[in-house]
């Protein structure tokens, strides 16, 4: 499901947007990757619901840029929960229990998506 959605989107991007800039295309591919993740998870997960809502409202997918690495060890538990809330889509409106559950599912989906993209990458470039 995820693979098929992503490949379809990839092919459409490749067909249609030959004239657009490379950064716009890479953004579209990234967007397609997240969209395929959200579609494959469906609406039963809070993070996929948040992602789908964000995609439908045509807002730009914005994920937080890399946080300062030097400050990580000193950060405490509560701050880390806040950071995690920012990383997981739809996180700010969850309680702690829900957040951890959704994080687990999100990580699972993200890993699958990365593996899928790597497979596509290998198959194309080899």
């Amino acid at each position, binding site marked *: *499901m995820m*693979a*098929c959605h992503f*490949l*379809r989107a*990839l*092919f459409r*991007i*490749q067909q249609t947007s*030959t004239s657009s800039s*490379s950064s716009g*295309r*890479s*953004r579209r*591919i*990234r967007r397609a*990757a*997240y969209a395929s993740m959200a579609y494959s998870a469906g609406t039963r997960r809070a993070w996929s619901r948040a992602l789908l809502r964000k995609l439908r409202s045509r807002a730009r997918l914005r*994920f937080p840029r*890399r*946080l300062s690495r030097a400050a*990580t*060890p000193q*950060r*405490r*538990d509560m701050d*880390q*929960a806040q*950071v*995690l809330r920012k*990383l*997981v889509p739809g996180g700010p409106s969850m309680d*702690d*229990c829900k957040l*951890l*559950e959704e*994080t*687990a599912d*999100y*990580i*699972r989906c*993200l*890993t699958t*998506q*990365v593996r899928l*993209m*790597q*497979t*596509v*990458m*290998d*198959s*194309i*470039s*080899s």
Partner: protein
Amino acid sequence: MDPPSLMPRLPDMCRFPMLGMPPPELAPRVGRIGGDASVEESTVTEQCGGSKGRWRRRDPPSSGGATEAESSKLVSTSSGNELAEAEAKHLKAIKSTDGNDNIKSEAEASSGICNKLAAQNPQTTEPPKQDYIHVRARRGQATDSHSLAERARRDKISERMKILQDLVPGCNKVIGKASVLDEIINYIQALQRQVEFLSMKLEAVNSPMNTTIEVFPSKDFSSQRYDTTSSLAYSSQTWEYEQGSGTEWLHMQVGGAFERVT
């Protein structure tokens, strides 16, 4: 407490056994009240004695701060329902603090809140009572509903943390909740960055792909590439036509193409 001051309370005390109070010696009295109205006087006197015993038990000053707070609350409350609830909490507090001195202060602190809650909504105090029965507390753990709920929540969170630790590679060796969360955050960031990087790379590979077939006229290379792209295009088209059943076939097709290429 002298008996004259107890007398105006007696109508309240009469309702006492109706509320499902645990003492077993009161149970037959309830039956008698329901069965025959003429015996009611004797039951009232008996209950007077029982309540006197209760009041007397509260009298000794060695019973601690919680009992004093309870008795003051009991004096202030007027309805029999609230009285019964307070009494139940009181008995439970005594039971729970019997052996463990270390949790006494916690139970005392929370029993006041419990009393207030019980006074606010007497109907909803039944489920916590069920919790007392079903959830067993180990020695040294508090037994009131708030800390029970808190403990259940903590158990849930640690269970989820364990699942997450299994998911994130290299996270099993890390000890401490903070460092585990740190690992999880780093892992998610790495994955998101990887998605970004791969999409950039896919874009870079995708755009010259149509031209590479002409640029590199190596026979098998280009044919394999052409196979891959055509199978992808074909499968995506068919998926649009037959959305329900086409997915497995698509996976097979894509997997076969990948195997052929690599």
